């Protein structure tokens, strides 16, 4: 048996809704570690490649467990992941008024690509993609309040 992206997303959601900070799961030699970061959203322990359907069946490794499949949020449709607002504040799509947006639909992103800014009392917090892939949808509106956990944009992870 193996874990699909949907499974991982479901497990992530369970962790997010729970009172626990960390979750470790070992299935048939596959090891998944999810950990809440300081700002409360769930990230993988390693924060490596994007969630993707894992090659199945996974041959039980001799010694080392596979590294975790990271993800930032529950999946939305097949293979598309939400990027949630890590905090409440005013969302900005561009570094300053008039400047081109950080990303548009179709933009390729790396894990550490900046996709927006959330301002809380003049303090600018950058929001990063958290995964490698392509932006498929932008939901956060420029200059408008976003709530904690509100979906800012969606990304189709690179396989």
């Amino acid at each position, binding site marked *: 048996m193996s874990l699909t992206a949907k499974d991982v997303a479901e497990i992530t959601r369970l962790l997010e809704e729970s009172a626990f900070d960390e979750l470790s799961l070992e299935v048939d030699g596959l090891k998944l570690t999810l950990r809440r970061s300081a*700002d409360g959203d769930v990230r993988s322990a390693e924060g490596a490649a994007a969630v993707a359907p894992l090659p199945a069946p996974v041959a039980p490794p001799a010694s080392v467990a596979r590294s975790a499949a990271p993800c930032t949020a529950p999946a939305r449709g097949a293979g598309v992941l939400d990027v949630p607002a890590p*905090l*409440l504040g005013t969302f900005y799509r561009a570094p300053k008024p008039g400047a081109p947006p950080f990303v548009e639909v179709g933009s390729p992103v790396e894990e550490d690509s900046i996709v927006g800014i959330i301002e809380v009392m003049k303090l600018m917090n950058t929001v990063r993609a958290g995964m490698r892939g392509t932006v498929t949808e932008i939901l956060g509106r420029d200059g408008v309040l976003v709530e904690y956990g*509100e979906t800012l944009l969606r990304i189709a992870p690179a396989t």
Partner: protein
Amino acid sequence: MAIRRILIANRGEIATRIIRTCRQLGIEAVLAASEADRDSLPARLADRTVCIGPARATDSYLKVETIVQAALGVGACAIHPGYGFLSERAALARLCEEHGIIFIGPTAAQIDAVGDKLRARREAEAAAVPVVPGGAIESVVDAMALARRIGAPLLVKAVGGGGGRGMKRVDHLEDLPAAIALAASEAGAAFGDARVYLERFVTHGRHVEVQLLGDGAGRVVHLGERDCSVQRRYQKLIEETPAPGLTDGFRHRLHEAAVRFAERLAYRGAGTVEFLVDTERDSFHFLEMNARIQVEHPVTEAVTGIDLVAEQIAIASGDGLRLGQSDIRGRGCAMECRVNAEDPHRDFQPSPGLVSAVSWPAGPGIRVDTHIAPGSRVPPFYDSLLAKIIAHTPDRAATLALLRRAIGATCVTGVATNLGFHAAALADREFATGAVDTGFVARLLDGRSAPLQDASRG
């Protein structure tokens, strides 16, 4: 300035309570809720709910900047902080002042003045309000000298504490240096202020507080007093008004002292001055001032017919005090039980979980303030208050009988509650007589107080 939209920076029953008054006044209520409270009753009742952060209060309800940003973002011109959380943080009041948002409460300077318990003591002395013997301590040598003058038992209290938090009791003076060291380190961790002071520990006192409203320009009225002596480890469980067994003269002196204290500060909004009352010696002493709406405010509302939250909003809007002292009259007796999700069989440990079924009492003279309905979750992150059940009739005996029936008619399943404790307390002979001191709950739990009839515990 008319307030059209209020951001409520709180949760639970008080959020529900504030929404109710907003609705009556035609004001839009926006609730700032943590992730754990997104589906709560107040979140459903509010005109809009914004999620301010994760369940943990330090990441949501206690984030000053996030709350102000949320108010600006939703276009709310005022913030109601409720009680607890940020209600007595000068930082929130100050940030509101800076951003042109109305803080429904006192000024930041007033919060600072009463939040520093030593300063509040000095203000009380200056207003000719008696304080409990005690004072500031500079060193251990200093403390020992003061302690000898006061005499044991005494309390080491945190300057930044309050509400029973940050106190250590010392029965023998040789234990004082250790108690000071412990209290100072705990106070430093809990309140960010390691200063402590000494006060005489009054063994048999009653806790009586006076409800006030001030216009912020020096005019203050009182709305009578509440007796909150039924406490367990400084947590109030039953409150009533008027306080039983006080002479008219004593009651008047208590009210006047509270008004004098608040007038000196030109206090703005709703506040409460707490006193330790010694009826045997016919004396009272200032304890502290609470610069917020209090949990037990409904008993005052019941007897005066005044909506305290509406008055808070009116004062914050700049309407000033709409009531003169002669407009305020208490009628009858009101009593409140705080129903908590806690397990009396496990030393009153909080009992979070899912409320599977609930039935609250109703009828003439009964008021229930709650955020709990069937299917409500009691998250483990916050206080365990489920509901306040308030009874009001023309006299104390009838109120007590009505509240007994109301508690008996209340049913909560899924989480453990202290309803059994309330049934036992309300059936107790000493309580029925009235004017119990703060040692009552301990005596009741020890079985040293005789119940009038069998009352189920648990």
